């Protein structure tokens, strides 16, 4: 993805935008390429530090094992849930065609 000189290319940004289903204008791609390059520069600064012996951080909070008991709690009312959907049918969410027929 990177070749040392340019940490991120326009093509990388377009690829990531496609994965995230974002429709970006040319100007936005331009701006985000610069913004993401700055973020990656910062990551490179961190990566340059001597971090031997520092365990990776999975989470910023010093917490472990936040667990709940396996006890049933009331679910939502279905009519209320489906009222929030653009379209519902037969007690279910109705969604547009998933794949192109091609």
């Amino acid at each position, binding site marked *: 993805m990177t070749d040392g000189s340019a940490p991120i290319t326009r093509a990388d940004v377009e*690829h990531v935008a496609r*994965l*995230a*289903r974002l429709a970006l204008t040319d100007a936005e791609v331009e701006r985000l390429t610069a913004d993401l390059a700055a973020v990656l520069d910062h990551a490179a600064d961190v990566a340059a530090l001597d971090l031997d012996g520092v365990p990776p951080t*999975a*989470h910023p*909070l010093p*917490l*472990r*094992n*936040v*667990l*709940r*008991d*396996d*006890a*049933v*709690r*009331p*679910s*939502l009312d*279905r009519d209320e*849930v*489906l009222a929030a959907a653009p379209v519902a*049918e*037969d*007690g*279910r*969410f*109705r*969604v*547009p*065609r*998933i*794949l192109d*027929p091609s």
Partner: protein
Amino acid sequence: MTTSGYEAVIGLEAHVELATATKLFCGCPNEFGAAPNTHVCPVCLGLPGSLPVLNRAVVEYALRFAAALGFRVPDESIFARKNYFYPDMPKDYQISQYEEPILVDGSIEVDGVHIGIERAHLEEDTGKTTHMGGGGRIHEADYSLVDYNRAGVPLMEIVSRPDIRTAEQARAYVSELRGVLKALGVSDVKMEEGSMRVDANVSVRPVGTEAFGTKVEIKNMNSLRSLGRAIDFEIERQIAALEAGERIVQETRHWDEADGRTHGMRTKEGSSDYRYFPEPDLVPVAPSGEMRAAAAAAVPELPAARRARLVADWGVSEADARVLVDVDGLADFAAAAVDALRDGAARDVANWCTGDVMAHLNETGLSIEVLPLAPDGLAELVGLVAAGTISRNQAKDVLAECLRAPTRPAQVVAERGLEQVSDTGALAAVVDEVLAANADAVAEYRSGDDKAKKKKRGFLMGECMKALRGQGNPQLLNALLDERLA
């Protein structure tokens, strides 16, 4: 097994639905068959502001599984987001475990061979989509309907090492794994109902080579039988392709039960870029020593040990022990019958269970808990045969009746007047009467050659049985006849 100089390399991924009361990250019921979208809440619908909280029972189940199959439980495991766009997940990502799963490096013994299990991780199940129009096929559908009851149900994905070589071994592995999970009480493991789904990675290579061939993932097998068929088909397909000088394409293929073939799926370039990253809404899981010890203490006798015990204690065959242990509740039923046994052998109990009782279960599709026959009823039947009250053949009829309707073997025997006459005095009186009434035959027996003797003796035995309406104890009658004709 090799076919025309090739061997298969198979790894299996089993997705097991955990039998908890609630979902993985919320308190919605984990229950099959409810009306669509009645088991949903802000967490499993991914509504803004909601936060997942891990179900303690899921961690306990995973630790129990670890203790049973010798997994290493890392100090910490973390959850990750698997990002993809498909309406079966309302969040547009699935919470799973990627780089640091809860269990690593287990193994299971299958017919004397250790199959490695690389990892087992936790993840949430997805919702159920139904494609409308176009015959229900996704490519031709007009639109789809989604039910999120299953979204968020806890799954454990169990990933074997590529240690499996044949379809038969794959089936045996899944069967053993199911038995273990069932014994641990962590899942119903019913492939037909979807509480266990198994995908297979299959490749082939020339015998004697080490490098793996290109692997193909096959999905959509919903029974042990279709798993075996799909793997066999795929092995043959790949060998034929290689023999024809073609290259194997790395892809996912769907098994079609109806036409008995695997079919390649249309996949788009880059569609498997899931952009995993650590789930910020969940903190790491770090099972304490106490949790590990409690889980280890909750591991019951596993199927392999139980089979060995039945072979040693009851003298049953390995195959029969497998039937007893594999069929839901059958070994427990047999054990209760053996406990209630006053007369007769445990092996007889086992034989009735694997024979007539199993045949009845298969025929009717019933489970053992709903049979009108209780374990002590079977013990009573075995006792009646052992005491010589009824013959084995009569016992089959008596058992058939007890399996149909609530009654007791002794009651059926009394009602039908089936008791064998085993009173030596009464039998002797009948024998004497018959010999007196057939003096000619007795004389011919005494003067005849071996052939004549045999014939006349058979005739006299038949007359005795006739006088007793078929209910004389044959061993005693034979002894009495021998004595009188000597």
